[in-house]
């Protein structure tokens, strides 16, 4: 069965790129969220296997969303996405239960490697 992935990013451009990469690699992208509230709603609705989560979101920090979703879905794998510069937040995210993180800009190989690794519960990071 295909692994199901939810994409959370406030940039439509980023979401589109991630979706294309993941779909091409055979994953099932079950939803896209542009802010924290949508992320929470879609996460509980679709119960994905993995969530890619942008650290900086308009209505909330990605960190709060991470903690909320963690609580509701303890088994979901969460991969943080961030451009360099916000390492402090990324570190905190890893401590709060994120499986791995991807640094933007990302290459297709890197994304697939990290997502694949996280799904095998290897706790990989970039």
């Amino acid at each position, binding site marked *: 069965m295909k692994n199901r992935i939810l994409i959370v990013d*406030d*940039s*439509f*451009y*980023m979401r*589109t*790129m991630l979706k*294309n990469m993941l779909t091409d690699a055979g994953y099932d992208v079950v939803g896209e969220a542009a802010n924290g509230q949508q992320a929470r709603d879609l996460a509980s609705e679709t119960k994905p296997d993995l969530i890619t989560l942008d650290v*900086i*979101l*308009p209505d909330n920090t990605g960190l709060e969303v991470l903690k909320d979703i963690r609580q509701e879905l303890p088994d979901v794998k969460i991969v943080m996405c*961030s*451009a*360099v*510069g*916000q390492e402090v937040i990324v570190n905190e995210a890893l401590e709060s239960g994120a499986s791995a993180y991807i640094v*933007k*800009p*990302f290459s297709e190989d890197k994304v697939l490697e990290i997502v694949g690794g996280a799904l095998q519960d290897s706790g990989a990071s970039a």
Partner: protein
Amino acid sequence: MKSREQEYRELFMAEALEAYDAMSQHMSVLEKRPGDEGALNEVFRLLHNLKANARAMGHDAIGEVAHRMETIFGQIRSKERPFAGSMVPVLFSGIDVLGGMIRAVGANLPLTENVPLVENLDRVIEGEEPVLVDDESGTEEDATRKLELSDLVYIPIKKLDHLLNLVGELIIDRDRVLTLAQEIGDTTLQSVTAHLSRLADDLQYSVMDARLVGVGTLFNKFPRVVRDVATAEQKQVELTISGQDIQIDRNILQIITDSLLHLVRNAIGHGIETPQERLKAGKPEVGQLTLSAQTDRDNVLIRISDDGRGVDAERVRRKAVERGLLSREAAARLNEAEVHNLLFEAGFSTAEQVTEISGRGVGLDVVKLAIDSLGGQLRVDSRLGQGTTFTLVLPTSIAVKGALLFELDGHPYALPLMHTDSVVSLRPEKLHVVGGTLLAKVLAENIPVVRLADLLADNDDALPPANRAALLGPQDIIITNYNGRKLGLIVDRFLRQQDIVIKPVSQPLDMIDLFGGVTLLGSGQVCLVLDVPAITRLFLSRRP
């Protein structure tokens, strides 16, 4: 593969341009309120996205600038340092440079790194003083800037006024041509004129639409006014604004600007009590003032509402008698609404002490005149101890007004619908004569009625006592309403309801203020437009 790249490119450009516009707006907010958290968070988030997206697209020059700006905004956001001092011009020029680079990407131009800016950003990050130079050095940036034209055009309002006048003339001619085509009866001509008519309609609405602005452009100036007036009056006032997006003709907004200012000053100066008085009256210390706009069919309603002391009807009655506006007996007979309308009478002002701001010697009568000149209405609604609401009923556009056409002595006349309550057809036995004046009972209300022909007769004397026997058959009566005063006008015949373009009356006629203007009908006939306020005043001065 090629098409996916194209898609990414388009998405990147769309988001980047949007981000640039949003950042520019947030920057101007920060210029006024450097601590505005919403604006700081948004600029930070947008820079973060722009950086990531630009790098993904390979536009590293954008990424470099955005990354450094993000770092600085991160410091400001976490309150390590304020948005102030020499960093501000650097951040502004950073936004400008980003805008220039984004546009360059859109125009397929190569990006070059802006070294002086990047160095300055680094200095700001390290807490050093940036090196500020005059804008002369940015020649490269200027070169790209010439490539884009704004989608917005600023037009002097005079040009739009001229356009509106021309459209007015065109509408009049259109009505003539339509009538002529009807008379000639040629079907080809009729279909051409029908098309012409639709085009003229479209043109008229387009021009009217081009003149519309959001009420917010005026409303948004009031938080400042309220703060200043409240401070000067030592009142505590919270202002709530709503309906900023309601659209209205720019010139109408211009004309009511002073009125609105006056009403708001009044509300704070005379309406809302001091904090001590409010506490004593069992009200919260902070007074509430509301400025709102809404549409009501073709009109725009603007309300100024306060929760202050309200209008003291007894005091108004007393004042009106003191100022000789009416007798003690007449004053005692007035109902609440009629008392409120006294506030708008010339020379009436309840302000007992002239305060620094609200007392400018301008009474509500001046406000009333301004609204009248627009063909609008001013209403007041007040409850003692609870507050007062002023409502301005304004036309959306000045060009075209709905009017009721009627005939008198073989000539057509028009009455603006804004001042028309209803039309009735009554048999003479339904009318009563009281004290020489005809009265009609319409919807349980006794309304004075007069033959318009008598009223318009060239004569300053009192009207002859009404003679019911002279009225033969059903009488067509238009009930007008000015400032809550109703008056029935007997006319020869109702014609129809029609949108008309009102033109100012020219020379000898403008001596007679009974006519608010003139319009040309499709038949080519000149039609005078009656001014209801003037007619009402004339009736009051000549009633037997």
